[in-house]
């Protein structure tokens, strides 16, 4: 019987190896898999390349992973947020690499990685510094840049509900990068608030079909990142 549920956070992240490419879902706090990130901190894999829209807040979650020196490089669209000090300090000290990608291009590169498309053309960033060094080409008298699909070894994603097959539902704008990151990674590891019986998710409403998910872990009451940041908590 197929059953993708694992029973502990440590088991969920145990295979993440030094030097892995890891996609981490979330747009700011919404959809950020904070328990999985903390498990990865406990696990300790180093020299990671992280693909994520932001760089985390305060000293918990993604910011804590970066602060713990586990991240060599980050591919991201917006590494600067209200409560973000960890990344800026390391970046200015030359201790972490940044590949800055427009948000829509980042999303499409992840989707392409999952869909077996090695490269595609987009109009975003043409005539800007972010197009420097990139191939460009005219289609219908408009200029486009060539962008490459991104694949990852692992994805850490937060969803709302799963079944044993790995079918996923999300909540509101926490959906953001989760569905595409699951498609683009060899091992998509998903924390959900609730695991239900197969058949309890209406097949018409499934957002991520289980084929894209390898491990599911139930975290019934995930931590509230904003609150932890407000309370100046740090992890570990």
């Amino acid at each position, binding site marked *: 019987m197929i059953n993708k549920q694992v029973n502990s956070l440590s088991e969920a992240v145990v295979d993440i190896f030094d030097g892995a490419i890891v996609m981490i879902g979330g747009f700011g706090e919404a959809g950020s898999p904070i328990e999985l990130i903390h498990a990865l901190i406990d696990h300790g894999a180093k020299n990671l390349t992280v693909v994520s829209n932001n760089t985390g807040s305060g000293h918990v979650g993604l910011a804590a992973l970066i602060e713990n020196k586990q991240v060599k490089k980050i591919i991201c*669209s917006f590494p600067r947020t209200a409560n973000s000090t960890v990344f800026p300090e390391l970046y200015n000290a030359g201790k972490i690499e940044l590949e800055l990608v427009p948000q829509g291009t980042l999303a499409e590169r992840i989707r392409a990685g999952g869909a077996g498309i090695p490269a595609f053309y987009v109009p975003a960033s043409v005539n800007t510094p972010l197009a420097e060094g990139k191939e460009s080409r005219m289609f219908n008298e408009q200029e486009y840049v060539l962008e490459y699909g991104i694949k990852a070894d692992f994805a850490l994603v937060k969803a709302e509900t799963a079944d044993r097959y790995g079918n996923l539902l999300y909540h509101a704008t926490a959906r953001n990068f989760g569905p595409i990151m699951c498609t683009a990674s060899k091992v998509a590891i998903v924390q959900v608030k609730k695991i239900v019986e197969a058949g309890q998710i209406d097949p018409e409403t499934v957002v991520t079909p289980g084929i894209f998910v390898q491990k599911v872990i139930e975290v019934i009451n995930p931590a509230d990142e904003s609150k932890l940041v407000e309370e100046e908590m740090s992890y570990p």
Partner: protein
Amino acid sequence: MINNDIKIGWDRAEMAQKVALDIPDGSYVNLGIGIPELVADFVPEGRELIYQTENGLLGMGPVPEEGKGDRELVNAGKKYITSIPGAAYFHHADSFTMIRGGHIDVCVLGAMQVSKHGDLANWSTGAKDAIPAVGGAMDLVAGVKRIFVITQHNTKHGDPKIVEECSFPLTGKEVVERIYSNLAILDIKKEGLFVRELAPNVSFEYLEEHTGAKLNQYLKTQV
């Protein structure tokens, strides 16, 4: 010199109201972070606009009551929002299908600089120690049908933000259609910048003094 006794120009709310008047009924609209967000407060009676927020919601509603926010229901500025009846959630690739694919009618953005060609700079000063962060700005200007900029006409230091050529790194080239500043509404045409409307107590000469690019007046028949 500025006369401090009389009110010169529009305040933020008035600027937002001017933008709102120019967005047709039934439009799909993406509002940038900051002053653009105010536009939603001034939609004229009888018009219905649908707001898209690029982090994954079509049909964004008003800010929730204090204390009623859902941490997983936020806008592109990561602030609490609500959704209207008839809304839809989607992932980022689908969201930027809307944006890149030309499905959004109007995007209202803030600016650091706008050139007379419609070039927009709103993501980086290019300073060496600044952390570069671009978000969805480049995707929006490349994909949305009409780009409106809402901005103070000058920086806090009094420097013009509307210039011959942008000195900051570009967000997009020849993308802005119209600028709504505290001093005027300017159309950007191939022939240059045209003054569409002057704010209260702003003369053409005053506007020229505060602008870093050549301004044109419409011929009467073109107004």
